């Protein structure tokens, strides 16, 4: 086992009756990285998180956090983790500050320590004023932010977030993503579920796609992208009609596939990364000026669609559902 691994999930399965919500998944999380579980609604993301934090019992498989067996000894593992559930579950009748202090107390923080942390967190999330208002009077974005603050008040080593930006305003979502990167910078390990492809791409070091309870692909963003493309593609835009030059270019750069995209744009596709200057020099020598060179990369969305067969449009629709729902 890799000593850097702080979370190890092996052959995890959850069945509800005959229905298998999570189907034999395995993955690991290294210390200090952000790992994302990306999948449409009903894929099994929440079920996976609930098993990892000790709120649901696996039907099969094992989960180790910090070397502790979560299934056998959930209370020990819970001391080092922070949890931000998909639905804000703080106390509506208590104000923001009291809610945070109460959550700190659950982790055994002293009164002085939790009050200090609560004030810092309210300040960090722009909730200082709202801190004196009852939680039930908060907007959706404020609720989510306070729920995240409650999840990190005890400075956990590992933070679990279940769709932290679903259904909230753009600015709050941006603030939350910034916070995640900030926490990572301070060494917190983060596990996040989402159905926002761009979010996974922006914050996660490694991503696993989950569909119908199964992990169908995993890797870093660039690994996932490489898995569906073969090599690197450069697109060059020029000032001249390139049609007469295609064959010459193909002969000169034999390792690459040369394709005419329009009369004054071509693509070169290579296994390896393509050094620019030989191409530019060659074209220059032919009297062709190059205006723009761009590396064509598939988006993570392309990868997702290709691997899962799920149309991006459907995932987007799920997104809206999520936004309007809970």
């Amino acid at each position, binding site marked *: 086992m890799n000593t850097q691994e702080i979370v190890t999930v092996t052959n995890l399965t959850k069945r509800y009756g005959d229905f298998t919500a999570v189907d034999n998944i395995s993955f690991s999380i290294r210390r200090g990285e952000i790992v994302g579980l990306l999948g449409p609604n009903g894929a099994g993301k929440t079920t996976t998180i609930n098993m990892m934090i000790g*709120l*649901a*019992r696996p039907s099969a498989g094992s989960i180790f956090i910090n070397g502790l067996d979560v299934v056998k000894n959930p209370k020990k593992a819970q001391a080092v983790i922070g949890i931000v559930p998909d639905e804000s579950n703080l*106390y509506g009748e208590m104000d923001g500050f009291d809610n945070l202090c109460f959550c700190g*107390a*659950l982790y055994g923080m002293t009164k002085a320590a939790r009050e200090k942390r609560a004030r810092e967190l309210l300040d960090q999330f722009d909730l200082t004023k709202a801190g004196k208002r009852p939680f039930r009077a908060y907007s959706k974005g404020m609720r989510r932010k306070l729920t995240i603050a409650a999840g990190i008040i005890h400075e956990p080593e590992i933070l679990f977030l279940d769709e932290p930006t679903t259904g909230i305003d753009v600015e709050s979502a941006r603030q939350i993503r910034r916070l995640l990167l900030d926490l990572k910078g301070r060494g917190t390990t983060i596990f996040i579920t989402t159905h926002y492809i761009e979010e996974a791409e922006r914050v996660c070091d490694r991503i696993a796609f989950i569909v119908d309870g199964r992990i169908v692909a995993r890797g870093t963003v660039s690994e996932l992208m490489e898995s569906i493309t073969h090599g690197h593609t450069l697109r060059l835009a020029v000032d001249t009609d390139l049609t007469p030059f295609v064959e010459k270019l193909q002969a000169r750069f034999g390792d690459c596939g040369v394709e005419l995209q329009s009369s004054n744009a071509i693509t070169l596709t290579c296994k390896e990364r393509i050094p620019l200057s030989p191409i530019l020099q060659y074209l220059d020598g032919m009297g062709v000026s190059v205006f723009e060179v761009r590396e064509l990369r598939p988006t993570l969305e392309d990868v997702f669609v290709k691997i899962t067969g799920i149309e991006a449009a459907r995932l987007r629709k799920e997104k809206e559902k999520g936004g309007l729902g809970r």
Partner: protein
Amino acid sequence: MKTWIAFWNILKKDVRNYYLKPPNISWGIIFPLSWTLMQMLRSYGGVNLAEIRNLLPGLISMSVLFGTTSMLAVTITFERRGRSFERLLLAPISLSAMVAAKLSGAILFGIFNAFVPVIFAAFFVDLAGINWGAVLLAVFLIAVTSTLLGLMIAVSAKEVFEAQTFSNFFRFPMLFLCGLFIPISSLPVFLRPLSFLLPLTYGTDLLNRWILGASMMSPALSIVILLGFAAALFALCQYNIQRKWIL
């Protein structure tokens, strides 16, 4: 130490959020008072204040029973619906410590309720010669067992109204089966075994002994039986929580 901080704050939050709310306090005062008056009228065909002492054990038992069972069932069901209960399940303290903290709030509320009829009675009759320490012990044991019954109900209920219905389903029969106002000896023979399956019977018997000086069983035996009930119910509740709330 950490467990203690968590325990104390759960208890404090429950007392502040639920038990110290005006509707609950007034319920805790008005309900026992109206029963006291009703019983006095019923038993003696007129308000005979001197007889209030004879009614006191039953009134105390009833106040504790009503103060504890539904309160805990309702607050836990409420927290489960709002999902804030998950926070407690996820806290790094043992399940028994968390459950004990939830129980403590209701137990304290029950004890507070118990003394409403006592204070009322103290205005009218001489309550001298009663061993209040012993009475407090009996009240405590009744509160513990009734609270645990409330927790059993909370574990089975999904909605707040269900919790309320279940708790009434249990406690109204208990008023009549546990010797609060009708001596068990005057119950139909086929109902009597049922009385002895209910912890409140033993608690009321203890109060009869220590307030009126007469009881069916020896106090020591009643205490042992009540402690047995408490331990068994606590274990059963924990088992049920593990089974039903950690899915």
